[in-house]
């Protein structure tokens, strides 16, 4: 478990599915082990469907997460119901794990609502956050609030290796460190920030930055769902018991384009993509489960079938989403709206500006 913080990359399953670490120490039952596959398969199927929906004009720009299923499922599955997730904009898989209603979530990509289409407080999943790294201070604030309330809960914040170049990353880490707050910072290093490769983003290693803030950093194989889960579980336990923050850097790869508006052929070598496609996190984990006997082929098929059905339902619900009412241009802005805004509403919606 401590491998990650010595500069080695924590790994429990080799790319071919062979266990290479102490998986038993995790203490996961077979049900729990299988659940991780079910979630990853569902997430991938939904991701594919979102791409299809986008092509069909049912969604606006969509950022696929293919290749990052283990990083998201492994980490989000280590949380308890009291914990709170602060996502960036590519964490649909994590949202699924947390039980966020995917149809509500997809209102965001359909363009019928903004980053908080679901109930963030009920889901314990903050709004989808596009200005990169700005969600990190929010996680810190929430964690401070939890600490002041003496709650045994932690905040988990997702961000990309590109986002880690922003000032907000630094301010958030430093505050979490000096206040010893229950925050788990999960960096999904997927190799690319739109067209910029990680080596043009920083000359350092992101997990190593934690030391400068006085807390541990670990690097994990982000395509190994158990390694991610193990690292996150340890970090969550430390956070909840007053041990302070942890920075986890999950090394993974963005197999798809940055978003449906992006054309990666302009900037990256398809051979690189093929190399990483061979390290697919789902295939690896499926092989692991079959090899260790934790699951059989029937289960694998069941996962696929279930995912198919669930995604068909989601799809149907998404294309049937009603457009927002024009009243929504105004209503959510203030709890106590200024009188002048009420006048603007009347002007705009009732044409009473004549």
């Amino acid at each position: 478990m401590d491998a990650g913080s010595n500069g080695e990359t924590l790994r429990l399953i080799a790319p071919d599915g062979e266990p290479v670490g102490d998986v038993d120490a995790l203490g996961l039952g077979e049900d729990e082990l299988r659940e991780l596959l079910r979630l990853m398969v569902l997430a991938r199927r939904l991701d594919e469907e979102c791409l299809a929906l986008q092509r069909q004009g049912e969604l606006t720009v969509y950022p696929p997460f293919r290749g990052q299923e283990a990083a998201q499922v492994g980490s989000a599955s280590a949380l308890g119901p009291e914990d709170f997730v602060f996502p960036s904009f590519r964490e649909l898989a994590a949202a699924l794990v947390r039980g966020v209603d995917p149809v509500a979530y997809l209102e965001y990509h359909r363009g019928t609502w903004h980053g908080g289409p679901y109930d963030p407080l009920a889901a314990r999943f903050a709004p989808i956050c596009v200005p990169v790294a700005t969600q990190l201070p929010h996680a810190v604030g929430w964690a401070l609030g939890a600490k002041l309330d003496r709650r045994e809960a932690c905040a988990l914040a997702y961000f990309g290796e590109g986002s880690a170049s922003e000032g907000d990353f630094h301010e958030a880490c430093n505050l979490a460190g000096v206040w010893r707050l229950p925050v788990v910072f999960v960096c999904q290093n997927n190799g690319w920030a739109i067209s910029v490769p990680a080596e043009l983003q920083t000359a350092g290693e992101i997990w190593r930055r934690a030391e400068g803030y006085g807390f541990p950093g670990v690097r994990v194989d982000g395509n190994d769902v158990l390694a991610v889960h193990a690292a996150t579980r340890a970090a969550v336990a430390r956070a909840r018991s007053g041990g302070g923050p942890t920075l986890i850097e999950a090394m993974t790869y963005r197999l798809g384009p940055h978003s449906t508006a992006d054309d990666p052929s302009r900037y990256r070598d398809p051979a690189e993509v093929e190399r990483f496609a061979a390290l697919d996190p789902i295939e690896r984990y499926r092989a692991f489960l079959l090899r260790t006997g934790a699951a059989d082929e029937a289960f694998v098929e069941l996962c696929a079938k279930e995912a198919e059905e669930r995604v068909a339902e989601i799809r149907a619900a998404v294309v049937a989403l009603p457009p927002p009412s024009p009243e929504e241009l105004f209503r959510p802005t203030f709890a106590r709206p200024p009188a002048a805004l009420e006048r603007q509403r009347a002007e705009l919606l009732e044409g009473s500006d004549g």
Partner: protein
Amino acid sequence: MAERTMVAALNAALRDALAADPRTLVFGEDVGRLGGVFRVTAGLQEGFGPERVFDTPIAEAGIVGAAVGLCLAGWRPVVELQFDGFSYPALDQVISHVAKYRYRTRGRVELPLVIRIPVGGGIKGKEHHGESPETYYVHTAGLKVVVPSTPSDAYLLLRAAIDDPDPVVFLEPKSRYWAKEDAELTTEGPGIGVARVVREGDDCTLVSYGAMVHRCLEAADLLAGEGTSCRVLDLRSLVPLDLEALADAARWTGRVVVVHEAPRTLGMGAEIAARVMEVAFDHLEAPVLRVTAPDTPYPPAALEDRWLPSVERIAAAARRAVGYG
């Protein structure tokens, strides 16, 4: 009524708010042990403990971002940004999150937070210590923006801001921090969104807020000696703007002069001029005039008196308005 400074009134407001609601927190740079560089938070850490009142590292975006997260955890943060010129690193958090969070979450997540900022010039400060940043906040849809001009209003409006379910940017005119005035500390009275006629008059209305209200009153005195009677309207809140009070004043006096420290272009005077024209065009007997700083950076201390609106410039504008046409 006792004589009090605005600093004392603000301190009392924070103290009473902390006492009234155990979810209220006060934090920022040097607000804890020191009690703030202006002593606005003096004694609060002793009184409420270092969990309710605390110092932060120097990280304005982090402070405001943490306040957002605290709201999600059910707290009511009152943060201090130490000076106008040091509020800018937090603008991204303010514009992208504080102002929009309720909207983005369809009204499900409220941010009952207050950002206090000492603002304005006139204290012979160094550069970056005399800025009037209100335009940045007023233009940002989703915020309320409040500026008290007296100790009584400082108390009443800060209590109202802390109680408000929406995010409030609370701008404190630091050149008025130490002036003693008769002040009552009460939450009863006109709240956020209500302007106040601080002097009645018939010939011209001087519209202002914060420190410049006092200069308008001086100008009104001067003009009274010349037989010109000026109404002085203290806006008190810039968002929401009290359009009734503006319309009343413009209709009654037909002449309006707006006064503020911020540079002219897209300073608050532009909005006042536009609104007055919208609501009282037929009553206007002169263009709305603006007495403001020029469109230049805040100058060094040695020049600030020339840059800031002076009583004489205000009076000259009022004379021009009254003599117009």
